[in-house]
């Protein structure tokens, strides 16, 4: 098993991949936690609000682990001849693009951005509104995935750029993991009491 894994990944590479998976998940959780914290404090108290944030960080950590495992498995589908770092950078790129779309999807609701009235009217009048919506989404999303992937395969500069970005994000994510640790301590205290 160990050999099977080490054929595709180095230990350092897996750690970097975990950090890049944890980054968007924690980033988004923290943004929403900070958005909620005053609301929570008003309705409960500071300790309970910290509790909600702490559990949120623990759940974010668990989600990061799940995503990391899925992505690491996905990495076995990449070409064998790719070197470790290129594979990690590629998987990192995929997770960042997917997270970006995940955030945009939620932000559109949070900012009350909806389709213009004419577009809704058009969809209403069509016989297959869902098919149209999915096709439009595919048209918008596909280039945002394919173009970076193409650049990544063709250009070493893109790989270098991604590796640099991951290094920087790794530092930030380590900081987030420190929050996870604090969250874990809070959760333990709350459950002992």
């Amino acid at each position: 098993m160990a050999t099977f894994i080490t054929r595709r990944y180095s230990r350092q590479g897996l750690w970097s991949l975990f950090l890049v998976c944890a980054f968007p998940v924690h980033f988004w959780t923290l943004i929403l936690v900070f958005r909620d914290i005053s609301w929570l404090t008003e309705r409960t108290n500071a300790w309970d609000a910290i509790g909600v944030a702490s559990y949120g960080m623990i759940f974010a950590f668990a989600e990061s682990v799940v995503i990391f495992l899925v992505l690491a498995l996905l990495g076995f589908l990449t070409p064998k001849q790719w070197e470790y770092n290129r594979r990690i950078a590629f998987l990192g790129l995929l997770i960042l693009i997917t997270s970006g779309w995940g955030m945009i999807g939620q932000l559109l609701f949070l900012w009350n951005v909806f389709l213009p009235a004419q577009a809704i009217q058009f969809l209403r009048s069509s016989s297959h509104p869902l098919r149209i919506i999915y096709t439009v989404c595919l048209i918008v999303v596909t280039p945002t995935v394919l173009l970076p992937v193409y650049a990544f395969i063709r250009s070493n500069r893109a790989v270098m750029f991604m590796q640099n970005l991951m290094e920087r994000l790794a530092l930030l994510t380590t900081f987030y993991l420190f929050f996870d640790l604090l969250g874990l301590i809070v959760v333990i205290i709350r459950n002992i009491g």
Partner: protein
Amino acid sequence: MNNRFSRRDFLKLAGLLPASLLAPRLSRMLDAPALAQEKPKNVLVLVFDAFSAYDISLYGYARQTTPNIDRLAKQAVVYHNHFAAGNFTTPGTASLLTGVLPWTHRALNLNGRIADPYVTKSMFSAFKDYYRIAYSHNGFANTFLKQFHNDLDELIPRESLYLESYDSLISTLFKNDDDIASVSWVRSMKVNEEGSAYSLFLSHLYESLQERKIESLKPLFPRGLPTTGLVNPYLLETAIDALGGRLSEIPQPFAGYFHFMPPHHPYRTSREFFNVFKRDGFKPVEKPVDVLADKISKEQPRRRTEYDEFILYCDREFGRLYNYLESSGLLENTWVVLTSDHGEMFERGISGHGSKVLYQPVVRIPLMILEPGRQVRADVHEYTSAVDVLPTLTHLAGQRTPGWTEGVVLPPYAATTPNRNVYVVQAIDNAQYASLTQASTVLVKEDYKLHYYFGYPETTEGELVKLFDIKSDPEELMDLYPSKKGVASELLNELKDKLAEVNKPYL
């Protein structure tokens, strides 16, 4: 030994006849020790959360929302002017359980806790020799039940009566902190009304898995399955069946407290009652938007209709429980109390409960006592309070009335009619152990109801006073404060004196 009865003996005994006729009445009036001679009866308190007397047909509501309760009330004592101690679960339930007002037990804030001195002063500590059993769907009420664990023989785990779902995993995993863990879980995994969730990816996966799990029940609940907040789907049927089953197994006498979530929001009735009140021509009394309304809710008629249809679901299940108690013989030796922790309102631009206002729909709640052997309905119109329930129950059970309660034994069981003030307190944003500086309070005396709100920026000069005659104006449409200044200032002074008294320890 001559066993024959002499004329003299007969006359002696005949002299006791009037006394023997009076004895049952006297013993009921004086009664704790006398009742205690009988085999102790069980006590069962059933709370339906956010159940407003305003929307109950038993109390005169135009929609027929409670056919079963109406029917069963024919053998009960029905209280028509019963007040919750607060306008949301925390203060309301804490007062019901401890028999003291929110400014005393200090469970003022959302999910607040009862102050330490009252943790050992509850309904459960008052029934020491009974088998004490409790359950709550509602997490806030469950917080108190956990606080009382030393005085409970059995606390049925909250999640055990939810439908099997992944949410219950969190309650199980974080047993000692399940409320806050659940709140965070909801915010992480459930895409809320704004379209966001802490979790970027798993929230979508979770939703689809969860949907699959309850797929088969969905057709039975066209508005979705009832849930506690946004999580924990449950069926009231499950809880009623479990309660009925458990009560026949446990030792007697028992003192049970069961707190059911319906008709609390979300109002998701079963298919049987879905849309039964839709377009029925019902027109609620129009009332002006209140100065303390947070945001104007435009959907009040629809919400009210859904709420009323959800009440029908509660009523059906209460009827089923009654039938169960009757067929199992438990009803013959059990005092059953039906009540609520607070009401619900759909008027003046405010929907739900827990807002700053204390109008009748949100504070006037049902109280009905089903007395073993009673065949005739008794109606009590005196103003009564949730804090009266505990002393009344101990009195009925022949227990010593706890010295700490601020309530009184209710008529018709009390020797005299209570003549005292009824208070309602809401101080959700006030610090727990500080004097009340931002609160909504009500004083009910004779037929007057004085509202006194203070510390809110929306009010001029930081306070707002209203006075209503709730006998002649039960809808609270005519504010008498400008025209009856004398009465208002007398009541206000009394209320302020009371506030000064309860604030004293925190100054």
